[in-house]
């Protein structure tokens, strides 16, 4: 019954860009208002989102195992992983900032990886319950995605400022690339996921 109410079920396609409705016919492939290409749902939403998520999962492992930066003081190098950096902050009595980094670089990526995974399972197995709550989960994931870039920006600032030769130097490690890739891939996965698929499955 609910599915009958969607615009698509009644023969209308909503333009992704301008929101203008068009009648679903064979002729119109472009929106009459903005000229954008019309497709009833995001193209290959499930496949693209799943592929991006899987790549992000794979890169999440090197992002956490390898050092994200090496701090050299008076010639002695000290590599830090993401978690190591947080522990160093806690030991330096900077617990609030440590919490912030913990949330932005550990919890948010985990929430995104698991959340998008669950959303994809939801769509695939056509779970019927709590469609509204799933949509809210999608919104949270789409909103928090960008905040994981915090660590990357912080490294970029530290690397440019702390560059005093052998006295003190910060060098970014290989995990930085992997972590940046995780952030971008999960953002793209969330962007490619079409929340209307959740509602299409409701009976």
């Amino acid at each position, binding site marked *: 019954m609910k599915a009958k*109410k*969607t*615009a*698509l079920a*009644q023969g*209308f396609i*909503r333009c*992704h*860009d*301008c*929101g*203008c*409705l*068009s*009648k679903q016919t064979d002729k119109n492939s472009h929106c009459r*208002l*903005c000229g*954008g290409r019309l497709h009833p749902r995001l193209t290959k939403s499930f496949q693209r989102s799943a592929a991006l998520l899987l790549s992000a999962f794979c890169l999440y492992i090197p992002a956490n195992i390898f050092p994200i930066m090496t701090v050299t003081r008076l010639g002695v190098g000290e590599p830090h992983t993401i978690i190591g950096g947080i522990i160093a*902050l806690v030991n330096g009595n*900077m617990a609030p*900032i440590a919490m*912030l*980094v913990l949330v*932005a670089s550990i919890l948010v990526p985990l929430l995104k990886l698991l959340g998008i995974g669950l959303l994809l399972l939801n769509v695939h197995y056509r779970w019927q319950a709590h*469609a*509204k709550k799933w*949509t*809210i989960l*999608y919104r949270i994931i789409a909103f928090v*995605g*960008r*905040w994981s*870039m*915090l660590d*990357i*920006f*912080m*490294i*970029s*600032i*530290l*690397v*440019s*400022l*702390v*560059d*005093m030769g052998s*006295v*003190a130097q910060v*060098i*970014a490690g290989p995990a*930085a*690339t992997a972590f*940046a*890739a995780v952030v*971008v891939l999960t953002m793209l996965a969330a962007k490619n996921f079409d*929340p*209307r698929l*959740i*509602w299409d499955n409701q009976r």
Partner: protein
Amino acid sequence: MNPTNLSACPECDLLLKPSSPVVGDKAHCPRCGYLLQRPRKQSVERTFALSIAGLILMFPANLMPLVGIKMLGGAKDGTLWSGVVALFEEHLWGVAVLVFLSSILFPLLNIILSLLISAHLYFNRPNRHLAHWMRWLQHMDEWAMLEVYMLGIIVACVKLSATSELKFGFGLYAFVALLIVTGMLASSLDKVLFWRRIGQLRT
């Protein structure tokens, strides 16, 4: 049924009669709760004014030093650009490009596109590229991450404050002002109204 006097929710595709909320009201989707429209007072005028202010602030925020440090006799200033260069010199090209895009290029394009669109709407000048610009603006929105960068600056400063003397440059004040202006810009830009005006200019 005529599609012009109907609309659909972008997140659950519920077919809706377009509501026209007044300034100060919000229109939510009755099924999934998506915020459909939140009209703003003088949306076009304010967007126009704020994007001019943002464009002016872009220059000091990008060209002047944000933070400087003094450490064991050495001193160094950091700008947005120097972070990108430092990452590039350490052969982290991917991360460098990502930081460049999300902290310099996309915020700049965001402001330029807002300026172009709102100026055309303000002076009622039709332009065949308006719909393209609006589409790019919507896709770029998420990738301009000035507020995340600000948080990165704060975390980096806290980390450095233990071992070195920090100096805040004029660029940082300009950066904070730019942050406020872009935040106001995003909230004053009423997408539904803008698309409607673009459609009206076309015919």
